[in-house]
């Protein structure tokens, strides 16, 4: 930056960034700290009676990790659900996106109609998740068109209650997440591949490498930092999974809470039982997990910057 004789513009820097910081501190930082603060308090409604806020130390966290009568620990179960749902959607998402990104950028294939395909596969990313989920609910409900088609064509003897079967509920959620995100991931990975020096591909071509060799020996290693970035940001996104399972299962995570996610758990304490203490404790756990994941992102990014 250039120095100016006599005139200092430093104060303008502060003035320009002030609104951002005031709003961030008031609406995000302070709420984050108060969330942490409330996690140490007993503060909920019992019928019409308000209990607390009373300081209880780590009692909320201990309660969070104490097994219930059946011996299962709710938060671990819901964390497990979130991971299972995320993996079921994210693995095909990354694999397919990688494949499509290679297709789109391949000079040899030289595919026609790229703009059309990109437009179509990116579209679900912008669709309201709750409406998309409601649509899948109506399509796969007991009286929905999918069941009508299955029964009338004789593929199923009777109506299948997709929303009462663990595998099908989880598969539907994973399918929706896959559809909503694979286009976005494709576009990101495409940009990554286009960022690779084209000479390397030409050199590999001259050396007689086939497409698979080019992919595994050139594209993949050079794409690794972006791939790591994409996967971990997808993980942080997956941790926030809420709208789709919430609307599909009407907030119940049916069957038997097998599709109940971490944020649904938080929402349940916050909206249904108004238990701010427990909601605070769940938030702190979520924060720790996402902070850990972000740290990995920054480590991998700073590594790739150094190289």
């Amino acid at each position, binding site marked *: 930056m250039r120095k100016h004789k006599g005139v200092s*513009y430093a104060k303008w820097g502060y003035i320009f960034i002030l609104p951002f910081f005031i709003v961030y501190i008031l609406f995000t930082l302070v709420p984050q700290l108060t969330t942490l*603060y409330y996690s140490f308090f007993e503060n909920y409604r019992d019928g019409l009676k308000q209990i607390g806020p009373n300081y209880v130390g780590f009692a909320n966290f201990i309660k969070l990790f104490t097994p219930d009568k059946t011996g299962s620990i709710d938060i671990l179960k819901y964390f497990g659900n979130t991971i299972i749902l995320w993996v079921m959607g994210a693995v095909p998402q990354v694999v397919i996106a990688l494949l499509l990104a290679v297709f789109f950028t391949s000079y040899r*294939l030289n595919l026609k109609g790229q703009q059309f395909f990109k437009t*179509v*596969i990116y579209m679900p990313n912008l669709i309201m998740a709750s*409406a998309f989920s409601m*649509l899948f609910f109506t399509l796969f409900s007991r009286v929905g068109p999918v069941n009508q088609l299955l029964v009338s064509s004789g593929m199923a003897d009777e109506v299948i209650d997709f929303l009462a079967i663990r595998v099908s509920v989880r598969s539907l959620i994973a399918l929706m997440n896959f559809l909503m995100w694979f286009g976005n991931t494709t576009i990101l990975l495409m940009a990554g591949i286009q960022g690779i020096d084209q000479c390397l591909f030409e050199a590999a071509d001259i050396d007689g490498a086939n497409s698979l060799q080019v992919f595994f020996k050139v594209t993949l290693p050079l794409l690794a930092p972006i791939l790591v970035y994409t996967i971990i940001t997808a993980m*942080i996104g997956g941790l926030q999974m809420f709208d789709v399972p919430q609307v599909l299962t009407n907030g119940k995570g049916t069957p038997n809470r097998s599709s109940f996610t971490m944020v649904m758990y938080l929402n349940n304490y916050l909206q249904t039982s108004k238990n701010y203490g427990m909601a605070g404790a769940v938030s702190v756990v979520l924060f720790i997990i*996402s902070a850990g994941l972000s740290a990995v992102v920054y480590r991998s990014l700073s590594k790739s910057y150094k190289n």
Partner: protein
Amino acid sequence: MKNKANTKGRIMLFCARFVAYFVLIFLSALCLFSFYMLIINASRSNAELQAGFAGWFSTHFIDNLTNAWNDASINIPRGMLNSFMIAAACSILTTYFSALTAYGIHVYDFKLKKPAFYFIMAVMMIPPQVSAVGFVHLCNTLKLTNNYLPLIVPSIAAPVVFFYMKQYLESVLPMEMVEAARIDGSGEFRTFNQIVLPIMKPAIAVQMIFSFVGSWNNYFIPALLLDKAELKTVPIMIAQLRSADYSKFDMGKVYMFIFLAILPVIVVYIILSRSIIRGATAGAVKG
């Protein structure tokens, strides 16, 4: 010999192309199928929907539209208006102030410049849900529930949009331009509003679309703060539709509600898909 290898290569290429087109067409069909079913079913009457599956349009699209539009319990036109007002306000505030913050950090030299930048980068990944408890509490204390302010004002501080704007400024704004404006006697705010903002138009347009869509689709926070019927936004109404006893519902109307909820975004997307897709990558970190 060489000719043989050439033919083999051609056959391989043909096969590769065939596989590529097959995969692309299959995935596109998968993406479009549910929306196709939505539009088909939104054009069928409740009786037709109960009677069985159909793969083509019927004639009740307008009936369903009038029924859904005039529904007594779910006031969808009101919801769309509410969502539109919030989303429009958010998209204006978030782009203007993110550009302002990015400009402040990009152009000026001050002691806290680096710490401020690293702070924003560090908080970029924190999910908004983790501050929800304190946020709801704050809104309760300030009597801001059933009010749009807590849904709109926080959009001033959007780290991801800031990062996008910062990268854009780095690539398009020469310092000479700012200095020339100063020499011509332009004040700092005037330089930003009249010279820098017009240069940033493409970035602002893309981010306006993304933040509009994000706000239009947002469900988690609005559902925690709004419970008055006349203030509810579209996603809350959709969730309400799910929790109602749907078997008593006119299913044609239900499909129409879903159709109306996603229609504005689809229309914007069809018109601007090129720049939206380009914008999706530009903010990403380059390798």
